């Protein structure tokens, strides 16, 4: 049954991954040259060694980590609150879910451009602030650009998390809440003692998906800040694109990609360790 998937996985995922890993030990311009340049040149660990002294790599790594941590925290909190509110047997919950889901259906690059139009100095947000007699804010300036990017990413993605978390909440048997309320447990206690523990497996999935989304953030940043001001919102995926497709250093770009993959793997592992296993007993 899983044969078609395995074929696809092997061709479209496994092969490029292994190839990229091998290429990360080579210097290669993508076979753009004539016969002499078609073959990648083996350089051992040179690409990895160069990262240590590459200022822009270190900066983009730092930005990626900041963006990932802030995004995951804010996005999880907001989507959890909204999912809990939507789980309160309100009418027309489907309509609300759909509305929350719409930003996720927007292509991130479009979202980035829209957010730029909204947040730039002469944009809608500042127009409203001005109208209210408040000072205008340089949302895309050096102090706030990273935060504004995270905000845009949260807006783009939280609807998807809401849908997943809501599905998890609706799967929790209502008898548990009824029994708890008979025992005198208040709403907060119910959330703390029943909802959150039982939502753990779904939360792990949500956190993991959010982490992946944040780690590969490229298009929304491309549309919103272009990695600026200066290099303040330069992230690893953006740097990979730059090195791979503008500097034509595909071996080096692959090496950065491998590092990004390892970071994703480590974060996923840590998340799983901190939050716990998926074994549920009740």
């Amino acid at each position: 049954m899983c044969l078609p998937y395995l074929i696809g996985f092997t061709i479209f995922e496994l092969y490029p991954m292994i190839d990229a890993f091998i290429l990360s030990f080579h210097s290669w311009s993508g076979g753009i040259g004539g016969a002499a340049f078609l073959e990648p040149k083996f350089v051992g660990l040179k690409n990895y060694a160069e990262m240590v002294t590459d200022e822009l790599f270190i900066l983009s790594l730092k930005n990626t980590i900041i963006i990932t941590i802030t995004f995951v925290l804010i996005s999880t909190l907001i989507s959890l609150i909204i999912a809990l509110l939507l789980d309160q047997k309100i009418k027309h919950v489907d309509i609300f879910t759909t509305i929350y889901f719409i930003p996720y259906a927007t292509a991130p690059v479009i979202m980035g451009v829209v957010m730029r139009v909204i947040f730039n100095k002469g944009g809608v947000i500042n127009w409203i602030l001005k109208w209210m007699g408040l000072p205008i804010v340089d949302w895309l300036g050096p102090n706030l650009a990273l935060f504004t990017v995270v905000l845009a990413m949260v807006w783009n993605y939280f609807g998807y998390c809401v849908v997943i978390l809501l599905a998890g909440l609706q799967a929790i048997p209502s008898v548990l809440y009824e029994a708890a309320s008979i025992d005198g447990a208040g709403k907060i206690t119910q959330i703390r003692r029943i909802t959150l523990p039982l939502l753990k497996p779904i939360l792990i999935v949500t956190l993991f998906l959010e982490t992946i989304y944040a780690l590969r953030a490229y298009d929304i940043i491309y549309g919103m800040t272009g990695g600026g001001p200066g290099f303040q919102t330069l992230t690893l995926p953006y740097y990979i694109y730059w090195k791979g497709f503008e500097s034509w250093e595909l071996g080096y770009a692959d090496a950065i990609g491998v590092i990004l993959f390892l970071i994703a793997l480590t974060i996923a592992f840590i998340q799983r360790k901190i939050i716990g296993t998926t074994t549920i007993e009740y």
Partner: protein
Amino acid sequence: MSGEKVEKKKISPSLIISVIIIIVLLAALVYYATLPPRVEIVPTTIVQTALRTETLPGTTIVRTEERTIVQTVTPTPTPKKETVVVWTFPLGTEEEHKKQLKMMEKAFESKNPDIDLVFEVYPWQGRDARMITAAAGGEAPDICYLNTRHIAKLSFLGALQPVENIIPKYYLDNIYPWVIEGAKAGEHIWAATNLISAPYVWWYNPDIFKEVGITPPKGPEDAWSWKQFIEAAKKLKEHGYYVAHPSKPSVVCITRPLFQQAGVDICKQGPPFVTEVMFNNSKGVRVFKFWQDLFYTYGVMHPSMLGAVPEWQPERELFAKKEVAIMLDTTGLPVYLNKIKSDVKAEVLGFLWCDEEGKEYMTGDVVPGYWGIFKQAYNKHPEAVKRVFQWLLSEEGIELWCKWAGFNSPYKTQEGWLKGTELYEVIRGDELAKWLPYGSPEWGNHPAANDIYNIIQANMDAVAHGIMTPEEAVLDAARKCVEAMKRSLSL
């Protein structure tokens, strides 16, 4: 309540079998893909019947014997039509350009029926990535429209076919010599241009200038200095008008001229390519200081220009809406205004010069594109590619390519071809012509050009936001550029 535990599953035999099947299938695929093509020549028997014929009555009747000729021949293969793929990027609007390219295909094929000329039009954005992925997949185009930075990188990587033996003699005899210089590297010529663009000049709105009381320069002899430019911009801002420049990626069109106006260049032009920058000094600081004044100190640049990003290029619209009174652009601006808002006029303000350096270094960008031949594709059918390349450089090819869009021909014989046309009036050809001698090629030709411009642009952006001082920006950019240059040359 009962407990639920997730059990660890054993690897199922079906999974193992599936993996084995995949491996076998892939091995078979690789085997067949690497087999050399099998060529078969099958003798064919042609049966030909000669019919008995008669001449008209009154003449000698000749009766020929009815016979059957059976002849066994080796078939002569039907001449295969060679397809030559040319990649290009839109001049004017994509729709207009595609229409023009169709005409070019027809014009070429009517004279060369054995060649199928195919123009493929792609967006300017991300064209490097498109070239790399195509070449990596063995699908590089035969001919591609390139900028000087591409020529440096591609020739350095050995991807381009030298064209000095392919360029027709009449091209070399009739072209302005400096046009060919941009495509030269070492002993070879790597590409050939088919247009001389109008330079990226500063345009102004005459009505706003009149309203504010600013007198524009009359021509190059009266050109504005950086200081005069800033003073005028400050005055405009007092009346609510701004200055603008092109958004990314065209913003690079202002970078090199600014350095040249300050009396330096970004790096030494090769080959041999070196890993030194030339702006790591007080002259380089002047450029960043000028930028800082425009954005940060006086805030005369339109706020939308801060960190201008791709995919959102509002500057022409801002000019049309009269939010912007001075703007750096090509002839695309007056053409755009003529179509969208004909009551808003754009006139030529020209190039600038740096107060400390004088007019000697007054310069602006010209944006000639070049046709280059990818070695990878050329080796497959050199004759066909050669014929297309030569036709693209013919007077007919050049006229069909760019006259409609308001560009100039590189041929002396076609000089002034737009004069007298309606388009010439729209693009203010007479005014523009005065500034043409001050144009210089865009980008520069170091293989690390993309890195260099990304770094310099980011630091100019940092200065515009007040993140860095001009001095810090120069030092930081110089260090990063040198690293990038070293890396590009070690590939």
